[in-house]
């Protein structure tokens, strides 16, 4: 709260202080890395399935956080990219193309292309209008998926074979698949970190806080924001490809608007403008959901008010709490 703690890092600029946030982030990554070991020791196979899901959705929330937390673009249709990535894998698998070297790039390219179209049309609007138009575009894709009779329509489509990588990685090996997801997530966090701290990222964040000023300085902010939007879409498409491989199933429900709401919840819960925020958010939200549904038959009776409480009481989500530890 008071000023002395804030001036500390500046004074101690030369000495490397190990910050609590770093310790907590590293601790979480370490725990996640050890999950398969725990599973091998206890043969609690469900934990691996749960945490694979957590990590994949954390990747999706991370991509949302890039545009929402750093770019100030509140997309309420982010689950659409999850669905597009998933359907790219599912459709190619059904048509007999099982190679991940084809499926995954197609998933990324398709969602990037869709993000380009949506972004080009909707980035001209602001505030609630932007929230609503991204929602509308996601609903469109949702109904397109329902109309795809050949690929299951409303009922969805089972994927009988996971993506193959020519013997390089075997996705049917659950631990290996888990580590692949974790590696993709950590690489993506690093990528987001690089983007945010680059000149490009500075422009994006500048446009969030004062777009008119950024334009006055001479940056074509719309183009910058659009590129950022496309990167986020592509990243979420990759998460969709992972999710389809994880569940062996795709359906329009992947992109129902409440799924987009879930992603927003994860990003906000973890704390936006924090690199590891979406991961914390996904871990907290999904574990809370899972834990509550084991204790009670009506988990959302507790989960709902918890979200409301977080919205009312906490600024900055879990990361804000961690930062509070540092200050206090």
């Amino acid at each position, binding site marked *: 709260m008071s000023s002395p703690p804030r001036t500390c890092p500046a004074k101690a600029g030369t000495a490397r202080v190990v910050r609590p946030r770093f310790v907590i982030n590293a601790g979480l990554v370490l725990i996640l890395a050890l999950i398969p070991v725990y599973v091998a020791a206890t043969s609690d196979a469900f934990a691996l399935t749960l945490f694979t899901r957590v990590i994949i959705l954390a990747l999706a929330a991370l991509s949302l956080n890039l545009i*929402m937390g750093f770019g100030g673009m*509140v997309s*309420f249709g982010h689950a659409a990219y999850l669905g597009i990535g998933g359907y790219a894998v599912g459709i190619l698998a059904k048509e007999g193309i099982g190679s991940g070297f084809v499926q995954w790039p197609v998933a990324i390219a398709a969602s990037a292309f869709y993000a380009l179209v949506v972004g080009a*049309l*909707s980035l*001209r*609007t*602001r*505030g*609630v*209008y932007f*929230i*609503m*138009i991204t*929602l*509308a*575009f996601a*609903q*469109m894709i949702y*109904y*397109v998926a*329902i*109309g*795809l*009779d050949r690929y299951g*329509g409303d009922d969805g489509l089972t994927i009988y074979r996971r993506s193959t990588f020519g013997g390089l990685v075997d996705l049917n090996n659950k631990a290996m698949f888990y580590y692949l997801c974790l590696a993709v997530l950590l690489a993506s966090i690093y990528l987001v970190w690089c983007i945010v701290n680059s000149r490009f990222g500075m422009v994006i964040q500048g446009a969030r806080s004062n777009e008119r000023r950024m334009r006055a300085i001479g940056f074509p902010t719309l183009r910058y924001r659009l590129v950022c939007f496309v990167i986020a879409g592509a990243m979420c498409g990759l998460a969709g490809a992972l999710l389809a491989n994880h569940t062996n199933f795709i359906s329009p429900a992947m992109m129902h*608007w*409440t799924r987009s*709401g879930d992603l*927003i*919840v994860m990003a*906000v*819960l973890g704390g*936006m403008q924090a690199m590891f925020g979406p991961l914390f958010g996904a871990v907290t939200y999904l574990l809370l959901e899972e834990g509550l549904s084991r204790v009670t038959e*009506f*988990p*959302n*009776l507790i*989960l*709902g*008010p*918890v*979200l*409301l*409480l*977080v*919205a*009312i009481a906490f600024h900055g989500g879990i990361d804000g709490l961690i930062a509070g530890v540092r200050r206090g």
Partner: protein
Amino acid sequence: MLYFIEQCLNGIQLGMLLFMLAAGLTLIFGIMDLVNLAHGSLYMLGAYFAATFAAWTDSFVLGAMLALAATALVGMALEVVAIRRLYGRNHLDHVLGTFGLLLFFNELVRLIWGPAGLTLSLPSEMLSAVQILPGLYYPLYRLVIIAVTLAVALLLYFVIMRTRLGMLIRAGASNREMVGALGINIKLLYTLVFGLGAALAGFAGLMQAPILTVQIGMGENILIAAFVVVTIGGIGSIRGAFVASLLVGLADTIGRTFVPDLLHAFLTESASSSLGRALSSMMIYVVMALVLIVRPEGLFPATSK
């Protein structure tokens, strides 16, 4: 031609129901600057209350009136307990908080009424069809919906444009600090507006209940349609919401009816039916995207900020 008129009537009926939801949403948007994802839950509650009370009292009308009062009360209680604390926060906090409320209400309904849906049956005299044009029979109840919602819309217009309360509501939308400074109890005003919005949503739910099954999550898809209406109309504008409701209602119904036939002229039977289904469900979103591309603030942007 008769078929076309019948579909137009269906479209108007859907549009009027959407208006009941959208009017509340746009009031809450415009006055409290709140994104309320839980609005669909109030719609659902209205339907559940109506089904329950109608079964208790054995009268549709009495049940509907009790349900209306109950939904308004729930809305006001919700405002006092939770929503009030979200004013003045950013839209993301609204989304997070009201998304939590939506989960809560869905679960609460499952706890109270169980996972299976309810049905609300109409009084027998409502079940008939009337001949409105030579050769065109139309279900009486749907006409009743159009008439009653139109009456409510007029009443709403009267309340907002011609009464002291309405004047305060309009004043609150354009400059809330000034209204507060002039000695108006702004907290009470907000609670009343939220209650009014809840009552309108509940009303839409209970009117729709006899046509559809009363089930959990029934408010979710129609909520999105209502958001589309609010966005097309211009956030905060009731007049815009009215025009946009009819536009969306007609676009949706006519799209569903005629797009598959239109496609059939070019495509095979199965291709046109599946593509047509997708295209017609997308219709309202296409309309919305087009409107926002041409007019990023909607058709009737509220002039005040």
